[in-house]
């Protein structure tokens, strides 16, 4: 199961520059700190792919770190299948933007990281091989991360995350820093992977197209402090195409305007 509740999460930081900008506005203050996330309330169903969209600095990465348990909220809680999350654990795996693989371990060792307590060695090896094959890295098992391309590193990290069979997958800007074609290919792979394993997945991105193509659901955050501007289910057929789906295109334009950016210049 992977039923996630983001229950009334608020987060404040100490940030002098923003504090000065905020002045005495009580809405931006949290004690002597500056409010970043303002009572965020969301609920995700099991197996949903949720894309969280927002301009940089809106607190979407902070929300992600709180969901992962790396950071604590000032208020509210994260609930996975009825249990409150207070710290990181292998039932909710965070996939990093960059450098998430341990560089002193081979692909094989990295993918086996969450399986190190399995006592049945052949079963363990089979499982590692299965996930490496799933991301098409067979033949690269014994390579170190620095010997892999950026896209291969992301795929290896994805395999490592999936190998522990988590309830929730948390991806922070999964395609940032990839070249355009690798980005497109990787996006397709993540969608296919999700269709196949149906794990609840939260993807944070600043790319509107990525969010609309990938998500079963789209959440738009904005403002300072951040609130939810839009939370909508996307039940367009896959593969999705902006050209063939006027409603999708319409939504895209709406979101652009919502974020204060003209979509046609």
């Amino acid at each position, binding site marked *: 199961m992977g039923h996630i509740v983001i229950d009334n999460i608020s987060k404040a930081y100490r940030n002098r520059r923003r504090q000065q900008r905020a002045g005495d506005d009580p809405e931006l203050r949290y004690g002597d700190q500056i409010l970043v996330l303002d009572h965020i309330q969301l609920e995700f169903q099991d197996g949903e792919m949720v894309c969280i969209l927002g301009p940089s600095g809106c607190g979407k990465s902070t929300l992600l770190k709180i969901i992962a348990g790396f950071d604590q909220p000032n208020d509210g809680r994260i609930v996975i299948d009825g249990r409150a999350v207070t710290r*990181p*654990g*292998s039932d909710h795996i965070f996939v990093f933007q960059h450098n998430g693989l341990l560089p002193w371990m081979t692909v094989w060792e990295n993918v086996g990281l*969450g399986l190190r307590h399995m006592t049945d060695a052949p079963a363990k090896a089979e499982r590692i091989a299965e996930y490496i094959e799933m991301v098409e890295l067979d033949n690269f098992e014994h390579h170190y991360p620095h010997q892999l391309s950026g896209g291969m590193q992301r795929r290896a990290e994805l395999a490592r995350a999936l190998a522990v069979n988590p309830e929730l997958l948390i991806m922070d800007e999964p395609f940032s820093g990839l070249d355009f074609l690798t980005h497109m290919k990787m996006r397709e792979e993540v969608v296919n992977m999700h269709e196949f394993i149906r794990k609840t997945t939260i993807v944070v991105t600043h790319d509107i197209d990525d969010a609309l193509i990938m998500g079963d659901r789209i959440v738009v955050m904005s403002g300072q402090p951040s609130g939810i501007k839009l939370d909508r289910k996307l039940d367009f057929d896959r593969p999705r195409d902006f050209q063939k789906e006027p409603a999708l295109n319409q939504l895209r334009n709406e979101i652009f305007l919502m974020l204060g950016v003209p979509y046609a210049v």
Partner: protein
Amino acid sequence: MPSDTPLMPRPWKTRLALPCVAFGLLLLAWEFLARFAGWSTDVFPGPLKVFASMGELIANGTLMKHTVASLFRVTVGFYLAVLGGIPLGIMLGRWQNARLLINPMIQFLRPISPLAWIPLAMLWFGIGDKPAVFLIFLSSFFPIVVSTTATVSAINPIYFQVGANFNFTRWEMITRVIVPAMIPGTITALRISVTIAWLVVVAAEMIAVQSGLGYLILDSRNALRMDYVMDGMIVIGLIGLLLDYFMRRLGRIESAGWHN
């Protein structure tokens, strides 16, 4: 002149021949100075005389005895410094309160030359190996602590988050994250500090001991045998060269090479 290509590995013959040219020139300059600088050969012996007396010292076993004694003290003092300094450095690198507590004290003690400790070392440890080992320990302990602290505190925090995400225990954080992450930096630190330890052994052996290369130099000075003094210096230099070579080799082992 073709431009220099620093990344191109040179063939081994070049890597052997170029340093030999430099040493050859050094020998020539030495010979030249010994002949024409005006000192007597007792005060400034030339290379031939020095090498001849080195033959004597090797033949009667003196040189070997002193070299082994020095190496023994450096090994013991250096290992003690490693055993104490690396765990302390890991602790300071990971635990900010410990760093706030202890780091200023370390920075206070560090610039005090080990040689300043000689009088205290002699009073506390008497004569024999102990004061020398203590001085060598001091000389390499602080550099090891300081560089281990820097290396450990510079480990990318993402790796600890990955560890936490996969439910690493505290022990696994040390063995699977901290230790592998710090190996490349630590080998460099050890390379530097072993050189410092070797630098200090000579001074340490000029007090309170009757063996070692430092003692050989001091004793030969008292006997006005400058050729023996130079023999001691040459052996110190050669061993320093070898230590550096072995530490470099250590830096090339697989577990240290992940960062390339």
